[in-house]
């Protein structure tokens, strides 16, 4: 045959590519749903990355620009320039040498005084005796010369002569004798001997005391000096009140004008210009409802608020670094002019900041430098001439929650957001994969024909992967755009609602794009690739024969003799098991999110509501001294008050070191019940076992018989105890022991105690003796702050979960119906009405959703409890994740409501399947 007459055409572009767009158009609802979820998730996570990266970058930059301190220390009073210069040198003082020198000086005076006194006494006696002897001899000479006197006259004569002699010669004789004695070798020897003895005692005492101090702070460790710049950053802590808002009471920490160190970002308004103006923290102003122009009272001094600021050393409002949680609700940081500062009547706290002259290379170097600096600080303060000068607090920047908490939280949120995105992407990728798998089944003969015609597996693979990839790429692009514009502001708004963050500039970070685009794409590619390749491995012939099952069912599953409809439904179930598994995974994912959205507010509300009941005593007063100025033991008026002792130790850990309250209580305490067995064991003294609180046990998984180790905060001293019992106290991380054991452990006097506890308000104790009062409010700080920061978002999050549930259900039920379109069409031809068909095809799904919800609720709760624990491990205190029955019901109803909406759509879908479909395909 002559082929020359045949005209050739151009090889067309791959028509399957055209089909990709047609597929997208044909199935736009499904793709739109997936696209929407992806856009929202990618958008939100991208926004989170952009917001976090931008803010973290700004915080890092600000620490330089605003000359953030490397740390600060609080002294008992203002230090003189000599001490400050010595501290700034970063060199350790030779404490024993200085102490010795001072003690020697003092001792020399005392020894000389003692020796002189002894010599003087000796010399005086000798002179007195010599003069007396001379006078007596002269009198006796006169009597011997013929003078007749009685004994009485003789004595009188001697006394008179002695008085005269003493008056004329004694002082001179004593002075001469003393001078002579002091010039004598004996005097020098005596003085040297006494000094030697004194020095030996001094050396012994100093060595003992110093070696204890040296052990505690590693002072014997020789290290290079850490030179620093020191600045005064004095403040006054005082009550804060808002003029016109009687219900509010808080605490404000007022600083004088900051000039060189720990500067601030003005968020609104301006800096104070006269002594009656004040600049306050923006976050606190928001929370307390303080506006610019409002008047606030710092103590009794009125100030007009002229601006809001974010202080570089208070991005999180921690009043004290040992607080379990920050408190932006009732704690404020403010700045006034120097004149304004002096107007406030409150003690000035001698707070000094230090900045390393040589910046540490990394966190490890910073830690090591701070330890070295602390050593030098301790020694320099110890050798200060003002012997009353003490270090009250020392907080290096890396340990300062007020500076680091927000930044760490931003970092953690990024990780959480990333995990959420990847889980959701994986769920969606699986939905895609199930969809594709169904499509491959439906298009089996077309695939067989294409493969038989010479299409390679690669070509088909690329084709079937195109749609999901296009969807994910478009979602990533739009999601990223939204992330950089809309969601960034949403996320930053959330952070501004918790932390005192400065103004920031958006940083165009590639990390957001990579993590929210590349990673979801790779996940989508891997999962879809696996499913498609797995199917495409089958031979073209099997596609042509619609024989895609790898394991061939030998026989149909035999069903019990139920009625036809029941058996039909079971067949539908058996046919769709993979889809139902996917449905289960999707519902579990949603339930996990819902557990958080429903459970977190519930948990916080529960703890806020029941904290008072959970405390072992509703009021606890810690005394500054157990005796009053007159030496009488302080006793409250309350009959129900009970003595207790308390000491704070630390449970050290790399991630978070937790403060643990160690209580010493009465063995027959009515507030904390100790078993008789424990009380008798406790008699063993300091090594006896202890009781721990329920909260301790739950948070750290410690049980009876385990051993716990707690440490002193600023000393290298550990305490190890065996746990005898777990007390049901769940409001705090605490250790209990008897008062006797407590005093033995901490080296206190036998009858020592720290304060009183009672269920009634403790009264009758003069305020000057109260160091601290602990009420339910103090214990609820964590719950309150978490509720404030996150509580409001949880309601929105619940709606998001319902939408996600609806979309997942929509996608999966759509697949089930599509798979059976032809059978449904045929059923219609046979005369079944839509209601009957719906009951056949929708009832199994409803049942699966129902059962899945129950299982997923439990699984979601369990998973959330684990996540919750991980979160709580980074915070002080403990409260277990709570979910009430009503919470579970709420979760169930929300997801089932989503399902019911989707069922209506499914019903309509079934209704709209044409009868002709079955006939047409049978052609």
């Amino acid at each position: 045959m002559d082929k020359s007459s045949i005209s050739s055409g151009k090889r067309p572009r791959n028509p399957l590519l055209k089909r990709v767009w047609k597929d997208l158009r044909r199935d736009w609802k499904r793709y739109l749903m997936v696209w929407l979820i992806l856009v929202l998730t990618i958008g939100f996570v991208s926004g989170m990355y952009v917001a976090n990266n931008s803010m973290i970058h700004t915080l890092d930059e600000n620490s330089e620009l605003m000359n953030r301190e490397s740390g600060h220390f609080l002294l008992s009073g203002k230090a003189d320039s000599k001490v400050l210069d010595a501290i700034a040198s970063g060199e350790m003082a030779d404490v024993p040498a200085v102490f010795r020198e001072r003690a020697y000086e003092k001792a020399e005076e005392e020894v000389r005084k003692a020796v002189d006194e002894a010599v003087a006494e000796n010399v005086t006696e000798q002179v007195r005796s010599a003069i007396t002897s001379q006078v007596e001899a002269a009198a006796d000479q006169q009597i011997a010369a013929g003078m007749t006197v009685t004994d009485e006259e003789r004595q009188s004569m001697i006394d008179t002569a002695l008085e005269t002699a003493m008056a004329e010669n004694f002082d001179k004789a004593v002075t001469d004798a003393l001078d002579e004695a002091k010039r004598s070798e004996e005097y020098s020897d005596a003085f040297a001997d006494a000094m030697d003895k004194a020095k030996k005692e001094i050396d012994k005492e100093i060595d003992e005391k110093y070696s204890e101090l040296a052990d505690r702070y590693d002072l014997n460790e020789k290290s290079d000096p850490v030179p620093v710049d020191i600045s005064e950053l004095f403040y006054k802590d005082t009550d804060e009140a808002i003029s016109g808002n009687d219900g509010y009471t808080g605490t404000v920490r007022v600083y004088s004008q900051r000039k060189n160190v720990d500067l601030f970002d003005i968020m609104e308004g301006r800096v104070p210009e006269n002594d009656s103006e004040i600049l306050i923290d923006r976050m606190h102003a928001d929370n307390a409802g303080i506006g610019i122009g409002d008047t606030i009272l710092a103590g009794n001094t009125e100030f007009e608020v002229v601006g809001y600021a974010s202080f570089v050393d208070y991005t999180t409002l921690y009043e004290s670094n040992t607080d379990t949680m920050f408190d932006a609700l009732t704690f404020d940081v403010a700045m006034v002019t120097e004149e304004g500062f002096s107007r406030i009547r409150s003690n000035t706290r001698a707070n000094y900041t230090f900045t390393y002259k040589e910046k540490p290379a990394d966190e490890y170097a910073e830690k090591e430098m701070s330890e070295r600096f602390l050593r030098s600080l301790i020694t320099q303060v110890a050798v200060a001439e003002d012997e009353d000068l003490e270090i009250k607090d020392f907080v290096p920047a890396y340990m300062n929650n007020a500076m680091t908490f927000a930044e760490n939280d931003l970092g953690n949120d990024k990780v959480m957001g990333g995990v959420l995105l990847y889980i959701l992407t994986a769920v969606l990728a699986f939905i895609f994969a199930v969809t594709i798998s169904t499509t491959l089944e439906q298009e089996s003969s077309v695939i067989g024909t294409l493969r038989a015609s010479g299409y390679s597996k690669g070509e088909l693979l690329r084709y079937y992967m195109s749609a999901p990839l296009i969807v994910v790429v478009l979602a990533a692009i739009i999601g990223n755009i939204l992330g950089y514009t809309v969601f960034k502001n949403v996320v930053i708004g959330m952070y501004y609602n918790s932390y005192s963050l400065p103004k920031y500039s958006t940083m165009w970070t590639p990390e957001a794009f990579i993590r929210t685009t590349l990673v979801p794409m790779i996940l989508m590619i891997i999962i879809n690739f696996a499913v498609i390749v797995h199917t495409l491995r089958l031979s073209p012939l099997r596609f042509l024969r619609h024989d895609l099952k790898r394991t061939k069912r030998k026989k149909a599953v035999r069903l019990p003799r139920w009625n036809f409809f029941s058996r039909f439904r079971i067949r539908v179930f058996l046919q769709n098991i993979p889809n139902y598994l996917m449905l289960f995974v999707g519902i579990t994912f949603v339930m996990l999110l819902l557990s958080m959205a429903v459970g977190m507010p519930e948990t916080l509300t529960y703890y806020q509501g029941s904290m008072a009941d959970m405390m072992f005593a509703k009021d606890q007063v810690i005394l500054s001294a157990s005796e009053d100025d007159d030496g009488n033991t302080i006793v409250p008026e309350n009959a129900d008050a009970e003595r207790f002792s308390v000491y704070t130790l630390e449970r050290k850990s790399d991630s978070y070191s937790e403060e643990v309250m160690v209580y010493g209580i009465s063995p027959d305490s009515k507030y904390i019940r100790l078993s008789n067995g424990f009380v008798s064991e406790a008699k063993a003294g300091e090594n006896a076992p202890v009781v721990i609180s329920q909260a301790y046990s739950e948070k750290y998984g410690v049980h009876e018989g385990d051993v716990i180790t707690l440490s002193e905060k600023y000393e290298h001293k550990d305490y190890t105890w065996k746990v005898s019992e777990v007390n049901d106290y769940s409001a705090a991380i605490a250790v209990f022991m008897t008062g006797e054991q407590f005093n033995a452990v901490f080296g206190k006097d036998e009858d020592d105690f720290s304060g009183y506890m009672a269920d009634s308000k403790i009264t009758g104790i003069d305020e000057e003796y109260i160091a601290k009062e602990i009420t339910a409010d103090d214990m609820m700080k964590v719950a309150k702050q978490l509720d404030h920061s996150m509580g409001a978002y949880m309601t929105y999050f619940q709606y998001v979960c319902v939408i996600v549930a609806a979309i997942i259900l929509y996608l999966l039920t759509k697949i089930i119906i599509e798979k059976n379109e032809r059978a449904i069409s045929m059923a219609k031809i046979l005369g079944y009405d839509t209601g009957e068909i719906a009951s056949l095809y929708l009832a199994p799904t409803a049942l699966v959703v129902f059962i899945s919800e129950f299982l997923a609720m439990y699984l979601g709760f369990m998973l959330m409890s684990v996540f919750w624990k991980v979160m709580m491990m980074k915070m002080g205190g403990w409260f277990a994740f709570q979910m009430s029955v009503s919470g579970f019901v709420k979760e169930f109803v929300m997801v089932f409501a989503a399902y019911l909406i989707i069922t209506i759509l499914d019903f309509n879908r079934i209704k709209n399947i044409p009868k002709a479909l079955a006939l047409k395909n049978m052609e």
Partner: protein
Amino acid sequence: MSNEEKKFLEVKGLKKSFGSGDTRQDVLKGLDFTVAKGEFCVLLGPSGSGKSTLLNILGGIDSADEGEIRISGDKLADMDEKSLTRYRRKHLGYVFQMYNLIPNLNVKENIETGAYLSDNPLDIDELLKILGLFEHRYKLPNQLSGGQQQRVSIGRAIVKNPDILLCDEPTGALDYKTSKEILQLIEEVNQKYGNTIIMVTHNEAIKLMADHVIKFRDGMIRHDIINTEKVTAAELEW
């Protein structure tokens, strides 16, 4: 015609069975035949005689247990999966009883799926005219009749101008009139483009239009006839 062209397709001792043990069924029991280049060969036989299995083995989508197939001297059994795909892509066209068109591609695009596989495809518009589908080129498959859909599937198979066109009961789902139209089309294609056509059918009447008829029964060739008195498709009656 050279000897090489006479033995364009050569089948020797071809055997195929399904199942094992008691359920083992020998479908092809040792086939030997040759097909010349450009020949219109009909594989005729009742259902279950093994003719479709043979076609699938010739198309490289199924494999034989024993024996060999050579096409233009190339042994099919020596080809790995990739080479088989390439072989199908370059040399084979497939037409099935069911048309297996892509539902959301129009007529022209469905034919393009075949054209894409060839470096030197036929002119699609010209082909559409020959197929009588030019007017319908923008229609979707579900807007076409069965005969028209089968024309599209033939178009898809021949647009890449394959050396061999394998047709598996192409008229099996069609009525008499449409079947004849399709057979005329295949005849026209054979004459115009000179492809070797191997058609599986159980319709005895079709053998009359073939150059070469191989009759099957129980997996064996009963008759291997060169038809010297072939008629046109239009003249067929059944």
